[in-house]
Each structure stands twice: as structure tokens, then as C-alpha cells.
């Protein structure tokens, strides 16, 4: 044994008390769903964690009705400061149960415990604290004369940051005075259901938060429900497009946060060691299951070889394995279906002539895994440079001048995020000014804060989450 074969350091699951089966959370209570329950599995072992209820149309009706009732009878009548009290209470409970939520998230999603513990859950609490503070100030911060809530929000979230996406959706909606029906992704329902328990613990009025579980056949009737006033969706561009179509011509306000194919631009004067860390964090954070991942590395030709060499050396130190081990850097791919998609696109990359390099690491026998992979000599016309892979796969492209870097970075149907690495401040400003992306990081990547608006250009969606923009979306008559 060598020192670098760190002895196992598994996070204890003793804090987690899971039930064998979970119902739908409607009107403040758990109840059975009308559809056939399905299993939620641990993607690292393929073992069943719990049975999850499946909402049918009648359940969706009931959930929307509960939300409507709570909206008209209690929530819209509460003062902002009272709404704030509930949200602060939820935020504190999230912190109290942080360890438990982190373990549940890693178990259900496959992400490393160090990420759920140090990134996801602290941000979840931060989001609730942040929007709790907005609740009693809405009349006085330039959002219009008397901004009013919209009503019932239908919210559908993805599997990559299950609890964090829930926080992004629920915290501003509730702060603004709306009630919600939220559907988590079918592979990652667990933390949303633990959140439902927290809602009970916080004594939130019944029906203010409703959680329904199921697949697309539960989401479609929710989004299409006539009594829904606002639809918020985070997920793939094809589904977002379908939602936009189905809500066109209705009164519904729609917020879409969709795919991305972000360029991470490394200039030859970049702080090299930190740029390498930023590239790693940009694409291998959360196994690359990040819509704003820096999946296209645009590196200046003069430093290409050095960057790629250093990147390979760094990737060789990443530790892939048990998501609950505190030293794991790369966890499991969330589902067999996602793993298949990553494999397919990687094979296409190889077939199209890009040079594939994969870090040597032992892949566990069970579960869904994909070793960190780099494709070098990628051209803008390659599919791996255009399509969102949503996995730990980096495409490396080169550029010669800033103008070429900007042109290549913008040459995508997406426009969610981008990164710039240079020691020269003026260049950061000049390049950022010309990038068509909603979020631009300079000398860092994948950093999030509740006060900072997040959202995309072009096919990456519309609307912003976070900050003042994030709450304005949930208010009628709010001036942006």
C-alpha cells in the first residue's frame, strides 16, 4: 500500500433514516400515488434505495388544487415578514439536517460526498436564507408599485443537482408569495421527499409546497395544467422546447434553464496551475453533469501542449469510486441511460477522428461509471464539440487570436456560460463583453451564489434565476 491509496473514509449512513416507500406530498401530507410505484436506485451499486410513488393525472390535479387552495386561503394573504419567517425556519432546518441531506444526495445521485457536503447542501441553505430576506422587502426595492405573486407555480427539475435545483425553484417562488407543485427527476426523488419532511417540520401551511414524483408522464400534465400560472423548468433543450410549445398562447409565465456547451478559454498568459484546476472543476465537477460545464476547452495554440500535458497529469490524480467516501473526486454516473449517452457520444468523437485519452482508473464492478476523458484535436464541426455530452468528457480545441477564441466560443446554439483565463484584466473585460453567454467566469469556474443571476442566451433558455431577477420572475407587474 502506498500513502496515496488513502484508506477508506466512508461517510456514515447512520444519520439517514429512510422509509422503504415514499408517497406523494400533497396538501401537507404524504399519500399514495395513482400510478405504479418505481424504485429509486443507488447508481454506484444499482441497489434499490426506496420505492417512489408515481403521480398520475388525478394526482397532478390534486396537487395543483392543494396549491391553489393554499395560495388563495393563506399564503397570498400572509405578510412578507411572515413568509420570510417560514423560509428562515426552512433554511435553519436545512442546515441542521445538512449531513443527512448530503448523504441522501450522494446515495441517490452518485455525486461525491465532498461535493454534496461542501457545495450542494450549503448552497441550498444559502438560497433559502437569501430569498427569505427578500420576502418583506418586495414593495421597496424597485420592483414596481406593489408587485404581486403570480399564483401557482409548476416546477420541474433535473437529476444533476436535485436538492439545489429544488432550492433555486422553491425559495424565490415562496418568497414572492406563490405556492408550488414541484416534480423532481425520476432518478433523484429522494432529497425532495426529505425536503417535504422539512416542510412539515417547519409547519408550513398545507399545500404551499407540494412534491409529486414520477417520470415525464407526471411532468407533462403538471406543466399543461390549466390552473398553473407559472412554469419553471431546468433540463434538456428538447424538453424545454416542448414545454415552450405547450405553454404558447396560454397565460403562463415560463422560465427555462436548458442545456449548454460552454467554452473555457485559456490564454497563453493564464495562471497555469489555477487554470488547470479550473478546467478540471469546469468539466469534472459532478461528473460533468452540469448544464454550465466547461465542456469545450479553447486553449491558445502556443500553450496547447503544456496545458494538455499538465491536465493529463492532474486527471491521473483524480479518485473515482464510492460516492460516500470522503476522498472520492469522481462519483457515479446517475443512470444507465446517461452512461449510454456518454459512451455513444464518446465513440462518435473517436470515430470522427478526435484523439481520445482516458485517465487510468479502476472502474468498480457494479454501478454506472465513466473515467475522466479528454478529446484532443477536436474541430468545431465534430459532434463532441457541438452536442451536450453531460458527462466527464472534455473536448480540446485551439485558437490563435482573441478574435478567433470569441468566434469559436460563440459558435454554438447554446449560450449558458463561459470561462476566461488570463492574467490580463483588460482582456477579461474585452472578451467577456463579446461572449454571448449568460454567466461568464474569469479565472474561476462553476462558482454559484444566490445573489448572482443565472441563465442563458439562445437555446440555453430564457429567464434568470438568482438575485433580484430571480424573484422578479415570480412577481406580476415587476419591473426588471
Amino acid at each position, binding site marked *: 500500500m*502506498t*500513502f*496515496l491509496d*488513502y*484508506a477508506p473514509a466512508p461517510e456514515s449512513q447512520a444519520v439517514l433514516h429512510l422509509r422503504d416507500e415514499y408517497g406523494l406530498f400533497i396538501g401537507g401530507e404524504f399519500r399514495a400515488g395513482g400510478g405504479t410505484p418505481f424504485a429509486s436506485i443507488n447508481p454506484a451499486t444499482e441497489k434499490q434505495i426506496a420505492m417512489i410513488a408515481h403521480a398520475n393525472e388525478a394526482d397532478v390535479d390534486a396537487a395543483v388544487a392543494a396549491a391553489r387552495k393554499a395560495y388563495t386561503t393563506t399564503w397570498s394573504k400572509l405578510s412578507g415578514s411572515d413568509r420570510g419567517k417560514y423560509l428562515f425556519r426552512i433554511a435553519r432546518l436545512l442546515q441542521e439536517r445538512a449531513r443527512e441531506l448530503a448523504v441522501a444526495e450522494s446515495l441517490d445521485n452518485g455525486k461525491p460526498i465532498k461535493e454534496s457536503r461542501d457545495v450542494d447542501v450549503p448552497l441550498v441553505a444559502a438560497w433559502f436564507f437569501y430569498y427569505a430576506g427578500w420576502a418583506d422587502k418586495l414593495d421597496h426595492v424597485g420592483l414596481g408599485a406593489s408587485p404581486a405573486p403570480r399564483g401557482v407555480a409548476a416546477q420541474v427539475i433535473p437529476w444533476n443537482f436535485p436538492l439545489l435545483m429544488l432550492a433555486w425553484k422553491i425559495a424565490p417562488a415562496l418568497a414572492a408569495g406563490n405556492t408550488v407543485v414541484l416534480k423532481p427527476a425520476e432518478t433523484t426523488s429522494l432529497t425532495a421527499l426529505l425536503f417535504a419532511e422539512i416542510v412539515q417540520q417547519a409547519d408550513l401551511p398545507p399545500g404551499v409546497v407540494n412534491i409529486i414524483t414520477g417520470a415525464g408522464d407526471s411532468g407533462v400534465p403538471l406543466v399543461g395544467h390549466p390552473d398553473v400560472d407559472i412554469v419553471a423548468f431546468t433540463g434538456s433543450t428538447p424538453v424545454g422546447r416542448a414545454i415552450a410549445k405547450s405553454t404558447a398562447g396560454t397565460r403562463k409565465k415560463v422560465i427555462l434553464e436548458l442545456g449548454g456547451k460552454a467554452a473555457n478559454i485559456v490564454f497563453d498568459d493564464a495562471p497555469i496551475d*489555477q487554470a488547470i484546476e479550473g478546467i478540471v472543476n469546469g468539466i469534472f465537477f459532478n461528473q460533468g453533469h452540469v448544464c454550465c460545464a466547461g465542456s469545450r476547452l479553447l486553449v491558445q495554440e502556443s500553450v496547447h501542449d503544456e496545458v494538455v500535458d499538465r491536465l493529463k497529469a492532474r486527471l491521473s490524480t483524480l479518485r473515482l469510486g464510492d460516492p460516500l467516501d470522503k476522498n472520492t473526486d469522481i462519483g457515479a454516473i446517475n443512470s444507465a441511460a446517461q452512461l449510454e449517452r456518454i459512451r455513444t457520444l464518446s465513440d462518435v468523437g473517436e470515430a470522427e477522428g478526435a484523439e481520445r485519452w482516458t485517465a487510468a482508473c479502476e472502474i468498480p464492478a457494479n454501478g454506472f461509471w465513466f473515467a475522466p476523458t479528454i478529446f484532443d484535436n477536436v474541430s468545431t464541426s465534430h459532434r463532441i464539440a457541438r452536442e451536450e455530452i453531460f458527462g466527464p468528457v472534455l473536448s480540446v480545441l485551439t485558437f490563435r487570436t482573441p478574435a478567433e477564441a470569441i468566434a469559436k466560443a460563440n459558435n454554438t446554439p447554446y449560450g449558458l456560460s463561459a470561462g476566461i483565463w488570463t*492574467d490580463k484584466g483588460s482582456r477579461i473585460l474585452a472578451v467577456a463583453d463579446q461572449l454571448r453567454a449568460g454567466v461568464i467566469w474569469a*479565472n*474561476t469556474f462553476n462558482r454559484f451564489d444566490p445573489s448572482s443571476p443565472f441563465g442563458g442566451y439562445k437555446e440555453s433558455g430564457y429567464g434568470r434565476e438568482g438575485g433580484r431577477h430571480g424573484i422578479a420572475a415570480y412577481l406580476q407587474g415587476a419591473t426588471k
Partner: protein
Amino acid sequence: MTEIVHADRALALIGGEPNDANLRRYLHGIPGVDAVGLQQRAAGLGTRSIKTTSKAWALDRIIGLIDLTTLEGADTPGKVRSLVAKAVTPDPGDLTCPRVAAVCVYGDMVPHAVQALGAAHGEIAVAAVATAFPSGRASRSIKLEDTADAVAAGADEIDMVIDRGAFLAGRYGQVFDEIAAVKEACRRADGTYAHLKVILETGELNTYDNVRRASWLGILAGGDFIKTSTGKVSPAATLPVTLLMLEVVRDWYRLTGHQVGVKPAGGIRTSKDAIKYLVTVAETAGEEWLTPHLFRFGASSLLNDVLLQRQKVATGHYSGPDYVTID
């Protein structure tokens, strides 16, 4: 012979004589350091969880990497003998406990340390701080005399300080020449050299860019080790600074195949902190750096905390400060 190879290599890299202009061109051509990113990476390495067998190994290795240090105006031969006794037998209750790498003392204490070590000298090295430590504010001839004096008294290793004033004023050539001259003063009568550790005093250099440049300068001029601090200036060793210096020795090794050591000194007092440094070494320069030739801790109170943790690993319960000896 190896020293000549080294000097030629340095001159080839600098592209000429080691004067201010050439050194400036070289040192300022090295990529910059992003402070936020560096600190983030160090914090990330600090979250590694080292348990059970890995922890036991780490604790023993930390002891073997310690330069057990006393650098006080009040030092006496008696104090040095006590320090040496601790270095030889860190834990009298457990004779399987490894010995430290070296004792580190002021130059005038070297004969006492050598005498007290007796047969253990060799297994445990004697390091002497020299060159008008800690400020370095003395003439070149005094610094060289200080060095030669300690070497003649039997010091195996010399911990020199760079001229921070000259460095900050951009007189890189002067700093380079002085390190090279001190290196020559480390030469023994038989032609061998005492190991030279170059103290950058990173707390006075202030910026990470300066630390990176000073690290390169120390290596180019012939240092066998680069060391963070004297321990007399705050901040002393920090994890980000040590990470940065490890990145430099790693890059130097990739460039030349020559291994240079790193010594964080001052402020590392707990096993928990020291383990973070081991992780940082292993994941940056590589595991092969975890030997006394390439990595040291300059510390005085760290040893007892490691001994307490070691007892905990062995017995399953914590003892207390009365169960480890003071030196």
C-alpha cells in the same frame, strides 16, 4: 561535479549571466499565480480524510520529516542537549517510534548538538541557521563566515535566509549571487557540501507571484531545499504557499529531472495540519517527495501533538500532555 552541471543548466535556462536583467526576464516570464484559485486548491487538498492505516503511516512519516527546532536567544547547551534527547527518543514509552530527521539550531549551538547526538549523528542530521538569521541584514562576508563556521563545526545542513530587501527592490542578481556564494561556503574540506536550504521568508514577500519567483531564484542559484519561513515573521508557513512552492519543484523536476526539497516552517502545530501538508506533497510533487531528502517540517511543538495522536491510534484513547515529554 554535479554543482557545475547544475550551474550550467541554470545559466542555460536564464539565457546568460545571472544579472538583474536576465533574471528579471526569466522570472517575470513564468506564468502568474491566481491567489483565489491557489487558496481554493489548498483548501480542497485540506479536506482529504486520512483515516486508520493511512493515518498511522502518516503520523510516523511526519515524525521522520521533522526538523526539531529551537531558535531562541535564550538557547543554552543544556536546552540543545534536551532537544537532541527528544530527537533521539521522541516517545520514551514506545521505542518503536521513529526518530526525527534533524535538529535545527543556531550556529553557535552546532558543537553541542553534534556532541549530544554522538553515534546518532548521521541518522539524525544537524541543521544550522546561518547568514545573519533571521533578518539577513549583515554584510556578505559576515554571512559567508557564519555559514562556513557552522559547517566547520559539523552542521550537515545550512538554513540560509535570502536578502528580501534586495529581492523586493528587483536586485535579483544580488540575491542569486549570494545564494551561490553561500552554497560555496557550504563546501567542506573533502569537497562535499552541506545541504543548503534557502529560506524565502514568504511572509515578507507578500504576494504569491513573489513567492513563485523567489522559489525559482532559490533553485536556479543552487538551493537543495526551498523553505518558507524563519518562524520569526507572521504569517509563517501556510498551506497555499507550500502548495505553490511544491508546484515549482514539480515543474523544475519536469524541466530538468533534478529533485529539490521543500520545507514549510513555523506555525504547523497539529497532526491534523501536518497531514494536510503530506496530502499536498503527495498530490502535487508526488509521493516520492515524502522522504527527509525532499520534504521537512520546521517545527517545535508539532512533535508532541503527533506523539499524542500516535498514542491514540495505538491505544484507542487519548492520553494527555503529561504523557509526552517536553524538551
